[in-house]
């Protein structure tokens, strides 16, 4: 049975290699997406106008001010020293964030005020997060953690992403979307193409077992998906300094598991549809949109309404993104990701069982 399988894989490789346009898109897209998210669509803000209203004018307040001055995220507007000047600068738009240090700052308990230009709430939130992080750093050096956290709101995200770098979010996200696209959408299209051409019938009349037909069709796409994983991983770590704190072996094994889940979805779609167009639309609507919107890639799951949070549990991408972050950022081992891995494994088994069932009903 090995020889017919090799014959089949060879044929499938011809299909992929000869469809130049699709191949270029499949190989080029991961790089383009990573670069796009890294350079253009970055939600990092740099060199935002910043001012300090220092009413304390003592050693601790100067230290805190210097820390802000050193940050690449903020550009100090040295001229803004009074409340009136601050208000004017906010109105002009040159000031995005102001820190008010009250008289007597330095002896806990202290309270600081962050004033932001909330006409753009996203920017305002991001900036106040940056500022909070800087203040926390300042206080972590001089006070105990308890006092520091009493001072400002601390988001758990900062724990592993102190600088709030968005690259940490989009590398796992882009990888997930690409693997879903290559594995699920491309295989569902490739299988339905055989149906449309009528070659599927001929293959089914041949002595090839149906399982072998499917395996032969998906193996080239597994290789393609893993190649994409490598490209994204390399760009993320080499160009954007994404840390890789965990084991590469575990990361590749998880990627393979997720590819398996995506493939089983693609196979399921192809058993239920008979034309390439339907398969593509179905993949886009049912797989790609939730993968992008509901997986936590772009919108944080915690800030979704409850019904959507519940639905997000059914999205394989959500679990894969968690696994990727756990391995890459936290350096976690199998003990940290076994639950998510089991969920993906369970989903894969479920989708394959469903595919086999609908395949059998078609034959019966």
């Amino acid at each position: 049975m090995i020889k017919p399988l090799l014959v089949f894989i060879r044929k499938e490789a011809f299909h992929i290699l000869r469809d130049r346009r699709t191949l270029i898109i499949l190989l080029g897209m991961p790089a383009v997406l990573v670069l796009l998210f890294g350079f253009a669509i970055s939600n990092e803000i740099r060199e935002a106008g910043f001012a300090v209203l220092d009413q304390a004018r003592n050693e601790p307040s100067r230290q805190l001010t210097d820390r802000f001055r050193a940050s690449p995220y903020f550009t100090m507007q040295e001229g803004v020293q009074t409340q009136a000047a601050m208000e004017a600068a906010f109105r002009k738009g040159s000031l995005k964030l102001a820190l008010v240090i009250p008289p007597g700052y330095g002896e806990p308990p202290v309270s600081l005020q962050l004033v932001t230009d909330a006409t753009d709430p996203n920017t305002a939130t991001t900036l106040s997060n940056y500022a909070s992080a800087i203040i926390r750093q300042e206080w972590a050096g001089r006070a105990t953690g308890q006092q520091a956290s009493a001072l400002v709101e601390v988001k758990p995200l900062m724990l592993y992403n102190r600088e709030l770098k968005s690259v940490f979010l989009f590398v796992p996200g882009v990888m997930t979307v690409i693997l879903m696209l290559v594995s699920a959408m491309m295989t569902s299209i490739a299988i339905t193409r055989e149906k449309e051409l009528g070659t599927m019938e001929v293959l089914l009349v041949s002595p090839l077992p149906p399982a072998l037909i499917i395996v032969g069709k998906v193996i080239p796409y597994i290789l393609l998906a893993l190649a994409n994983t490598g490209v994204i991983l390399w760009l993320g770590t080499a160009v954007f300094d994404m840390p890789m704190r965990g084991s590469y072996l575990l990361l590749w094994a998880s990627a393979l598991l997720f590819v398996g889940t995506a493939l089983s979805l693609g196979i399921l779609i192809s058993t239920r549809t008979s034309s390439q167009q339907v398969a593509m639309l179905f993949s886009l609507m049912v797989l790609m949109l939730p993968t992008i919107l509901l997986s936590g890639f772009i919108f944080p799951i915690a800030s979704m309404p409850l019904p959507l949070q519940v639905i997000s549990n059914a999205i394989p991408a959500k679990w894969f993104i968690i696994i990727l972050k756990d391995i890459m950022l936290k350096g976690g081992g199998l003990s940290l990701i076994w639950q998510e891995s089991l969920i993906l494994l369970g989903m894969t088994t479920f989708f394959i069982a469903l595919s086999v069932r609908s395949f059998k009903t078609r034959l019966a």
Partner: protein
Amino acid sequence: MQNSPQSPIIEASKLTKQFGAFTAVDAISFEVERGEIFGFLGANGAGKTTAMRMLTGLSRPTSGQARVAGIDVAAHPEKVKQRIGYMSQKFSLYEDLTVMENIRFYGGIYGLPRKQARQAGSQLIEQLGMEAFARKQVSGIPLGWRQKLSFSIALLHQPDVVFLDEPTGGVDPVTRRQFWEMIYQAAETGTTVFVTTHYMDEAEYCGRVSIMVDGQIAALDTPDRLKSEFQAANMHEVFLQLTRPKP
């Protein structure tokens, strides 16, 4: 299990297929002899395709039995599949592969050794006179050539029976004639040909013809005897008499 040369190559006995309450094929029984060209006719929806799917192991009968080359199709579909060839009305070639690659692929999935597949391929291309097309992708060669190639590929592993599902759809009359010459050649070498068609002139070329109406075989005989039985000038009239709703 092996059947003797005298016994029929295809035996259907009370072959039935139901989809829910609808009976697509209603207890049909017939036999096809070795080396025969058997025409399988019927209007659209009469149950031809379903019957053919049961004979090729693509679909399981609700009741009744089909034996091909002496093997029970439902019980051992994988054994039957090694003994039959199949050509669909879409000609089923990969358009982005070359002629030679198509031949070698189909040879490979039928377990032909690489060397043998290559030899058979060169031989076939020579027989068909397709040397000029051998390294061309199938999308670039004319429909008539694709049809001949598709038929030859179905015969590549020397099957006992070849099933042709409307093999001449969309092909011009001259090419159709040439194609039927290929069918005769195959039958002369002992391959049984089981063919469905829409063209009544093609029905005249068959050794025997069966006509399905509403899931049942309404008539089965040689074209000559069918014409005299129905007092018709040609097969077209026979077909109309059988399929037209009775007044």
